[in-house]
């Protein structure tokens, strides 16, 4: 009898040891693509990086990076200000951007030869070049990255580079723009490149020397190659639950303007748990305080559960999440509501809205609360005393019974 009990107990324990793994495979996506946009404007002839010209520093770094590019990453180069040296700024200088090396599997020799031909020439039409760089990247659902290397701010003004970046990011094509400034002391350049990076979730680097430039470019290429995530599905949340799009498990992206609420519907089967997380990105200059609220509403508009957070200071995103194990008898359609408390100074662009990333997950998981303690086990002197006294009482009682019966 005791042996059976012991065996069962042991079996239970071994069973408890084997818990499910969380490995989650992802679908194969198109190869990641990275397009370098290099400034070849006249100012690149200045000698202030390691005693050499900015152009030569960039070329050396490019040669390093071209050798480094891993298989499976598609690579391209676009130039800006490489062809037109004249004074016709608006007519020709500001549309001077061309594809130097098409985006595709890299041929290292050809790419290096192409880079070697560059000489500092013209104007700096950054916005125009970014639009071209996106066209170069073409279609596909892989990661897309543009790396902008420049020494000066945009000298054309139209289209405004940061607005271009924000619009490209809002197109929902999974685009990131990393910027590298060769003149870190110039505040206008820093501000503009910082704005472009912020608008697309990219990074800004103030380049100090050639080695740093090469290392940084390699790091960016490496990130593109190693981290492969699917581009979130673009969704358009509605004002009302009734019109809201129906979402399955997965990652979605949307845009949300200041003061706007976005709603989405999710179907939850009985015995399943809905998990949702939302992050709203601060892709433009914001006021100091911010917050986000994610609410889950029942079909009749009742709030089931909420996730919220608030903070202040510099941030890239503000995120929160919630979980809701379904206790309904039948499948129910619930409504997720996203609102945020970002605000911005008056001169900040209002549209497109801030990027919202919504992750919905449905796991097979009945909510099974149990005892507060592990396996209902006791711990401490009081349970020991209680058990001992109970045993003593039982022994005495049994002894008395025996006495009466005998």
């Amino acid at each position: 009898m005791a042996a059976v009990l012991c065996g069962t107990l042991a079996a239970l324990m071994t069973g408890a040891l084997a818990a499910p793994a969380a490995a989650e495979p992802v679908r194969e996506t198109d190869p990641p693509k990275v397009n370098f946009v290099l400034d070849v404007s006249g100012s690149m002839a200045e000698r202030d990086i390691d005693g050499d010209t900015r152009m030569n520093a960039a070329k050396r770094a490019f040669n390093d990076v071209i050798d480094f590019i891993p298989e499976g990453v598609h690579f391209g180069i676009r130039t800006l200000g490489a062809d037109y040296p004249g004074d016709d700024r608006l007519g020709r200088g500001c549309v001077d951007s061309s594809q130097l090396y098409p985006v595709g599997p890299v041929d290292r020799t050809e790419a290096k030869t192409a880079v070697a031909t560059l000489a500092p020439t013209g104007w700096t039409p950054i916005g125009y070049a970014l639009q071209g760089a996106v066209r170069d990247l073409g279609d596909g659902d892989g990661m897309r990255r543009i790396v902008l290397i420049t020494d000066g701010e945009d000298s054309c003004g139209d289209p405004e580079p940061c607005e271009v970046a924000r619009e490209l990011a809002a197109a929902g094509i999974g685009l990131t723009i990393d910027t590298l400034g060769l003149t870190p002391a110039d505040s206008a350049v820093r501000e503009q490149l910082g704005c472009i990076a912020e608008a697309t979730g990219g990074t800004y680097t103030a380049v100090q020397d050639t080695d740093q430039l090469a290392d940084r470019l390699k790091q960016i290429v490496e990130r593109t190659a190693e981290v492969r995530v699917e581009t979130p599905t673009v969704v358009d949340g509605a004002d009302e639950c009734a019109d809201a799009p129906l979402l399955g498990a997965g990652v979605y992206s949307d845009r949300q303007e200041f003061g706007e609420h976005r709603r989405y519907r999710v179907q939850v089967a009985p015995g399943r748990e809905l998990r949702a997380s939302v992050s709203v990105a601060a892709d433009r200059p914001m006021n100091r305080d911010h917050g986000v609220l994610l609410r889950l509403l029942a079909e009749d508009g009742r709030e089931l559960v909420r996730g919220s957070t608030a903070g202040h200071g510099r941030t890239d995103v503000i995120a929160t999440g919630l979980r809701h194990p379904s206790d309904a008898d039948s499948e129910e359609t619930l409504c997720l509501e996203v609102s945020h408390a970002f605000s911005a100074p008056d001169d900040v662009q209002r549209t497109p809205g801030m990027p919202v990333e919504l992750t919905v997950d449905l796991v097979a998981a009945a909510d099974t609360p149990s005892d507060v303690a592990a396996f209902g086990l006791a711990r401490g002197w009081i349970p020991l005393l209680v058990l001992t006294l109970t045993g003593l009482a039982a022994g005495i009682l049994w002894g008395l019974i025996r006495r009466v019966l005998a």
Partner: protein
Amino acid sequence: MTHTPRARRPFRRPLGRISATLAVCAALMMGAAAPALAEDDDTGETGTGTGSPSAVAAGTSFRTAGVLEQGGTATASATIGEYLYWVFPVAAGQNAEASATVTFRDHGARTGPSTWRLDLYDGLRRLQPCTAGRAEDTVDAAADTLVLDCTLRTVRAWAEPWANDPLPGAYYLRLTAVDLPEEDLGLPVEVTLEVGAEDAGGARARGGELPAPLVLTNRAGEIDPTAPADGEESEDPEREEEAGPATGAGALTEPETGWNGGWWSDRWLWTGAGGVLGGLAAIAGYTLVRRPRV
């Protein structure tokens, strides 16, 4: 009260057999428990087997976070102002902690003091408070390094859906400068990060179980899923056989104890001891009042 050996025998035999079996059973249980105990004592941290430093690159968002193991170390070169993300697994009943060292590589180019912060988020990307450690600190322009650390609350095995309690699953770390002079943006820094988790002990061994760890999917979503009931099957790994390697939080390895923290805690010893004491007390009580036989 005088006992004759004869009178005791009929009772002692079965009792002796049962107690012997129980003793064997207890020994077996202890045997099974011993490795777990020894492990806890020896390493202090679970999952430190592969604790050798590795250059786990930082990610730039929750979804691209660099994946670490418990006891893992990561180094990354980055720029001031960048948002660096890592993710690591924590099981129920563990106290997780993270520490980051920021080494400035700007050779005195910084112009003013900057404030850095290490944030911990749970699998649902809810910000989790630090119970100990200095998660936010300010350094002046001349400082070479900065150390930040954060200890998480004990991860619960189960919590009500309305609670913000930490649950087993992915834990995201975000390191960034939260306040800095605009001129210092983009300057180079080197970051070393360490994460670890240790067993919180029997006093914090809780019941309940989260059926699946908090690890959100990283796949692109589907609007208007074709069959509403396909939620049942969409989790089936068989349906994803064309899938490639997992990324982000999906690539996390389960902690050695299992997401739910394993079965062992010193509560087994306490409860077992209580049972033994109860048994002994029962025998003593019985002996005390048993009708003396002459």
